[in-house]
């Protein structure tokens, strides 16, 4: 029951916000904030009640579509892999609502879309029925499309449509794979599929694996399926960038571990090397392309491609350590990139430009925001005692034995990231003071302080006390890598 409430709570708050009378539209943000905080509290309660190593917990199960040979369940549950991601989602939802407090245009619809987005992501992380999982995966398209195309900037319609088309194209493959698997095995239950393994499907298992991977890889994203991401990030409103980078990309990594590796371990063994190669290539490609970017948000978007490449590399190594590192990297990247987008979004609100060449010297005019950007930048580079460091080191340690070459390539990518982050900081934060931003003002509203400080605090917490999450991830990932047999 708890999980059902948790998953649908944001959408319910969104509905309430939507139904506010027109002259009360400005209360929509409070309704959304209340819903987001309630969801955060509930997810934290689950987090502390969770029994590490206890498998799937808090299960909600009911028969849903029972049509002859075709049984679909309503089945939600969390394990040590998905629960941290659930908490990440509820936390970033609160942050996303806070940075949206200054939205003026069609507030009720905006917050409704944002909260439905949160519900759909929570659903993806908790659904244990493959078809239900797919439905939540698709549900996310509707609010994302509207959020980017109505409240975005620049070529927002183009970007929104591109996002939808890429995702739908990926999901078409995914759906074929899901049906092939489920019709072959006679069940959509991901827990059952993940335990018993699948011997045969309607299609050859290699294809099923590949199709699933394509569907998830678009979302992750990997090179060369990543081109929608810079566009979507560049044109999305701040809160949507936070959600997109923070949790939507993680759906891809989570799904690869949960389905590709767990359900089809044999194929994962065969193709792990490709994961590592694609991952390493994404790390390098993403890092190189950042140097050419002139728009801060697009720059962060490409750095995301680079960082998510590390996730795929960690998964490809298939060992417990490497996959724990990959999962940890997803959490760390969610927080760090979320923070980066929050800060950049707040700067954009003040300067109305994201052109790096037009910014400069902000350390003088907006000291707090500049400090936030510097902090997030360092975290993104992987400074010790911050979350990103733990994740990267774990991945490298875990994957080194399996794929020495890929790890060396990835480490080179991390070196590059230090280069582009520092260079960006130098151009945006330091340098000569620009007179046109003199009166722009610094971070000043409580909601701005709250979102920046909250995210920064978690980045530090995960950096200095990794066991909080590691103890939870370890048994869950251990079960997965035991299935792969490495």
């Amino acid at each position, binding site marked *: 029951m708890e999980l059902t409430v948790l998953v649908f709570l944001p959408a319910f708050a969104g509905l309430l916000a939507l139904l506010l009378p027109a002259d009360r539209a400005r209360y929509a943000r409070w309704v959304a904030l209340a819903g987001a905080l309630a969801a955060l509290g509930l997810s934290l309660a689950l987090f502390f009640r969770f029994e590490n190593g206890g498998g799937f917990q808090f299960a909600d199960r009911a028969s*849903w*579509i*029972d*049509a*002859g*040979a*075709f049984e679909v369940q309503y089945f939600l549950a969390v394990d040590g892999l998905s629960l941290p991601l659930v908490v990440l989602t509820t936390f970033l939802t609160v942050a996303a609502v806070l940075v949206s407090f200054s939205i003026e245009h069609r507030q009720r619809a905006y917050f409704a879309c944002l909260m439905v987005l949160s519900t759909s992501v929570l659903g993806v992380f908790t659904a244990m029925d493959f*078809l239900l999982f*797919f*439905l939540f995966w*698709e*549900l996310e398209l509707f609010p994302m499309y509207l959020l980017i*195309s109505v409240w975005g900037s620049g070529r927002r*319609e183009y970007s929104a*449509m591109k996002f*939808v088309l890429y995702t*739908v*194209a990926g999901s*078409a493959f995914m*759906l*074929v794979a899901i*049906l092939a698997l489920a*019709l072959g095995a006679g069940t959509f239950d991901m827990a059952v599929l993940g335990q018993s393994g699948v011997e045969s499907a*309607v*299609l050859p298992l290699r294809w099923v694996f590949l199709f699933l991977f394509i569907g998830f890889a678009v979302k992750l994203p990997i090179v060369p399926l990543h081109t929608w991401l810079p566009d979507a990030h560049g044109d999305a409103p701040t809160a949507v960038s936070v959600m997109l980078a923070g949790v939507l990309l993680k759906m891809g990594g989570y799904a690869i571990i949960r389905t590709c590796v767990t359900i089809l371990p044999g194929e994962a063994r065969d193709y792990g090397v490709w994961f590592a190669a694609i991952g390493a290539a994404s790390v390098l490609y993403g890092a190189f392309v950042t140097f050419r970017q002139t728009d801060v948000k697009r720059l962060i978007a490409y750095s995301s491609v680079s960082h998510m490449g590390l996730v795929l590399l960690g998964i490809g190594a298939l060992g417990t350590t490497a996959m724990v590192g990959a999962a940890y990297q997803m959490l760390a990247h969610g927080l760090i990139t979320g923070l980066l987008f929050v800060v950049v979004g707040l700067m954009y609100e003040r300067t109305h430009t994201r052109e790096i060449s037009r910014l400069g010297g902000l350390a003088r005019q907006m000291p707090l925001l500049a400090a936030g950007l510097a902090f997030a930048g360092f975290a993104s580079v992987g400074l010790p005692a911050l979350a990103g460091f733990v994740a990267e080191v774990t991945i490298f340690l875990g994957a080194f034995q399996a794929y020495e070459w890929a790890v060396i390539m990835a480490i080179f990518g991390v070196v590059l990231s230090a280069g582009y982050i520092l260079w960006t900081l130098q151009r945006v934060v330091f340098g000569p003071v620009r007179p046109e931003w003199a009166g722009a003002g610094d971070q000043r509203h409580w909601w701005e302080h709250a979102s920046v400080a909250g995210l920064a605090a978690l980045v530090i917490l995960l950096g200095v006390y990794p066991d909080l999450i590691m103890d939870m991830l370890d048994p869950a990932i251990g079960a997965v890598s035991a299935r792969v047999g490495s």
Partner: protein
Amino acid sequence: MRDFTLFIPEYIAAGAAIGVLALELALPRLRRDALAWATAAGAAAWLIAALFYVGDAPGDFEGLLRTDAFTAYFRILAAGAVLAVALLSARYLRDRTRAAGEYYGLLLMAGAGMTLLSAARELLTAYVALELLSFSLYVLVGYLKRDARSNEASLKYILLGAFSSAMLLYGISLLYGLTGSTTYAGVAEGLAARGEGTDLAALAAIMLIVAGVGFKVSAAPFHMWAPDAYQGAPLPVTAFLATASKAAGFALILRLFTEALAVDALEWRAAIAALAAITMTAGNLLAIQQTNLKRLLAYSSIGQAGYMLVAVAAIGYGDAAAAQNASSALLLHIAGYTLSTMALFAALVAHYNRTGDESIEGLRGLSATQPFLALVISASLFSFAGLPFFAGFATKLLLFQAGTGAGLLWLAGLGAANSFISLYYYLMVMRRMYLFDPPEGQTRIRPPALLGAMAGLLLLGVVFIGVYPGPVFEATDGAAAALFEASAAAFARLP
């Protein structure tokens, strides 16, 4: 046995048809939309009477007609469709014609014809029922007699319809020659017992019948009439053509192919599978180039007929259980498709009543002027494309699963690929509504109350089937079980 009480609901429909005609003759000054309300009342009475017959033991009329859960399903569908179309027509027809009695009368007759078609278990009875439906539609399509396009559409429809009826009749006569019977059971028995050297005759008969019914459900390459008829017909009649008329075609196909022709599945199943593949591909590819909304919907409905034919092919390829599964999925798909189409047309009629524009371009900026209508149109199109949370997703899933279950993986895959193609042109329509600015000077207006409420209700149904198809599936499963109960003997003789 001659049990005349079996068709009391249809007597109500026919009585209402005559009543509407008489009403106009008796009170010539009556407002034209009063006839629509009278028709709607008649259809509602028909629907309620039909509900009383749900769950009754199967009834039989001299072996010619059978009332069972299958008939009840189509009876409710027909009554519901007539009710919806009557309401859609009220203002549309008042604005455009002066005499409407025949229109509403024929609408009711067409619905009654559809029910009879789903009850028929004898070739000539089925033929007569089909012609009752078709002749009513020939007139309805050309009802706007001052509109050249409507006349042209009607003429094309009549010519091609007559052609297809002739083929069907020719096939029927060959079957009779082969088997010496016109009842489905008799035909099945005759086909099972036919001697050596009759393969060619059987093949010819069956192919002629396939072509004949292919015309009725607008399967490619027999689809040529559909775009013209859809475009020229009054908008509510287009809705009827796309839903009830198509459903009636499949009612005929289901009864015919699961009983009379089940024995010879080997002869027709490959042809039906090919027809399904061609129909869905042609429909969806041709739809991409359309600029007229009605033509686009015609091609999209051709694509839908292709998906439905997958289930018919699955009946031919599968064993009795798989065939029943496929029939049930087909019935579910028809229900979801009918609801989506009606919701779409309710919104389109509301839009057309105001603007008189039926081009896709005319939907420009609808989300700004009539956001609710834009929402309904988008949701219906999403349902057609098979996106989750809308009826089309659940029903297509079961449809393609039935195909896969019968070993037609390639056809199911092609269906999925086609759904993806269709998403493209549906999104192009939505793009016009959401991303373009409305024409100069248009501001936000309320949708008309009746059509808005109808669209909203139908949309709820679409979402309901999409999210929780269980109850409707149980109904269609019961209908399919009844269908196979009637034809158990035929299926037992499967090769």
